[in-house]
């Protein structure tokens, strides 16, 4: 089956999710949510998942109005956000976390706070929630971008909301931190950083993408290995699950849209969600 680029990215992220640690749905990162559900529905049914502080939630359909209600149905426990984050984030039990920043640079610093000077920014962004702590403490960190440009992958972020340091395995062990890399996943390829001595290098290229396009559209220096594999493409089974069950409204495409098309898309999704809820028999 032909796949969309967001679907390929979802499948790449899903590979990192398993039952060796806890994965938590962070703040509005629909592409990541789809990845976690896909992992639960395929290779990692036992992966412990937390959404909205519903502990051990089941895999759910992604939508705009009732995903949270679904997460709470069938969860093993209801915790407060502090119980959850102390246990998982600070307690060294976090496996995979995705962030979707406005900017990231070659040190791994990311920005979800401001575009422009901090005191009088050009754009005041939402802020990072717990992402600075998460990025520091989890095992595997994935930053994803809906486009691969020098505006997002910059030489230096306008402001570092957060960023993992140290990254090197020895240094992290010494501090009692979980060991794992930082990845950047974009519509062109996958970049990885796993030591403090080196920056990001290309881990894989998506089908049809050449090295030059990646280097040219990256604002920081990039390691280019001699032999770069192609990113694995989605299977028919994965695509079927994503389109028909996990994300029938296509929320994972949000990160690939500008504000205007996103608004029109929201209208369309809401019309469909309304019709479905209206057609339900009363309780």
């Amino acid at each position, binding site marked *: 089956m032909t796949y969309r680029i967001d679907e390929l990215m979802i499948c790449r992220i899903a590979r990192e999710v398993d039952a060796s640690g806890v994965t938590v749905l962070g*703040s*509005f990162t629909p592409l990541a949510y789809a990845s976690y*559900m896909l992992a*639960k*529905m395929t290779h990692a049914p036992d992966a412990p998942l937390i959404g*909205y*502080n519903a502990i051990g939630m*089941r*895999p*759910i*359909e992604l*939508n*705009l*109005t*009732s*995903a*949270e*209600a*679904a997460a*709470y*149905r*069938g969860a093993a426990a*209801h915790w*407060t*956000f*502090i119980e959850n984050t102390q246990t998982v984030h600070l307690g060294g039990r976090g496996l995979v976390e995705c962030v979707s920043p406005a900017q990231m640079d070659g040190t791994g*610093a990311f920005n979800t*706070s*401001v575009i422009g000077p*901090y005191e009088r*920014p050009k*754009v*005041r*962004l*939402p*802020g*990072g*929630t*717990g992402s*600075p*702590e998460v*990025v*520091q*403490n989890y095992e595997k960190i994935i930053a994803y971008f809906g486009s691969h440009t020098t505006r997002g992958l910059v030489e230096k972020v306008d402001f*570092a909301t*957060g*960023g993992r*340091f*140290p990254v090197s395995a020895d240094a992290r062990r010494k501090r009692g931190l979980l060991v794992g890399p930082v990845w950047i996943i974009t519509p062109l390829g996958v970049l990885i950083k796993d030591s403090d001595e080196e920056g990001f290098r290309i881990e894989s290229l998506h089908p049809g993408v050449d090295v030059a396009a990646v280097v040219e559209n990256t604002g920081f220096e990039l390691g280019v290995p001699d032999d770069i594999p192609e990113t694995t493409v989605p299977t028919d089974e994965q695509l079927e699950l994503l389109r028909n069950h996990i994300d029938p409204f296509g*929320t994972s495409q949000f990160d690939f849209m500008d504000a205007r098309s996103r*608004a029109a898309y*929201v209208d369309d999704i*809401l019309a469909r*969600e*309304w019709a479905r*809820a*209206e057609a*339900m028999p*009363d*309780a």
Partner: protein
Amino acid sequence: MNKLVPLEELASFVPPGSLVGLGGAWLSNHPMAALRQLIRDGVGDLHLAETMGSMDIDMMIGAGLVSKVTFSMVSLEAFGLAPHFRRAGQDATIEITELTGLALNTAFEAGSRNIPFLPLASLGLSDIPDRQPEWYAKIDDPFTGIDLLAVKALRPDVALLHVRRANARGDCQYDGPMAIDPEMSRSARKVVVTCEEIVSDDVIEANPHMTKIPGFLVDAVIEAPFGAHPLTHVPVYGLDAWELRDYAAAAADPSTWQAYLTQLRSESEAEYRERVLPPDRRRVVRNLARAATTLDEATA
């Protein structure tokens, strides 16, 4: 002890200039009915503190009632950047104190324990600790010497929380998400809760494990059905995304925003519910809270 008060008396617990902790997180459980009442009463110069805000903080900024926000995120998520928060941040019209999320949670926790700070592991490359020296200080672990961050305690003058049910004593139960409401209730000097329904002590005592805030922490209990609307209060109602979308559209333009505010100020909370939640909308948002099947059910 009867702590029941009408919503109209909320302002007596929230003097102008108060540091107000807001319950809820993301698009859920924020004390929206309470905030609408503060807008009706024009209670201003507020310092709002909350880890994950959305329409709650944005609406209050838009109403001109906020002088300071302490937060780690304010966003309308799929419905865009929070328009008033964004403008206030860009134009520096209010004081913006951005903390990292778990540090802010830790600040509430330190407040709840009546100690001046709690330590947190260092934050890597984040610029936030250096940017907010009033809140973070570098300290050494007194046992190993490893560098840590001290996070200063935060004690709101009053916490505004929205819960599923409460009795007249103020024992509060949740059936769904509760953000950091229980911890915030312990850090605040006063706690005012709105609830979907007032129940008898028997109802509370039948399920004591659901009581997350005991009455001895609570100063006032206000009945406010749809008190988190248009945001969610699972499992009673899902997101009124249609109203949230209308809010975002109104907030985008000063003239439509003035009309939105004038409408809010001119009506009681009961009239608000009548206007914004006609029978079909009310039915849909209730159904949404139970519409979502989990995928193992759907594919079984």
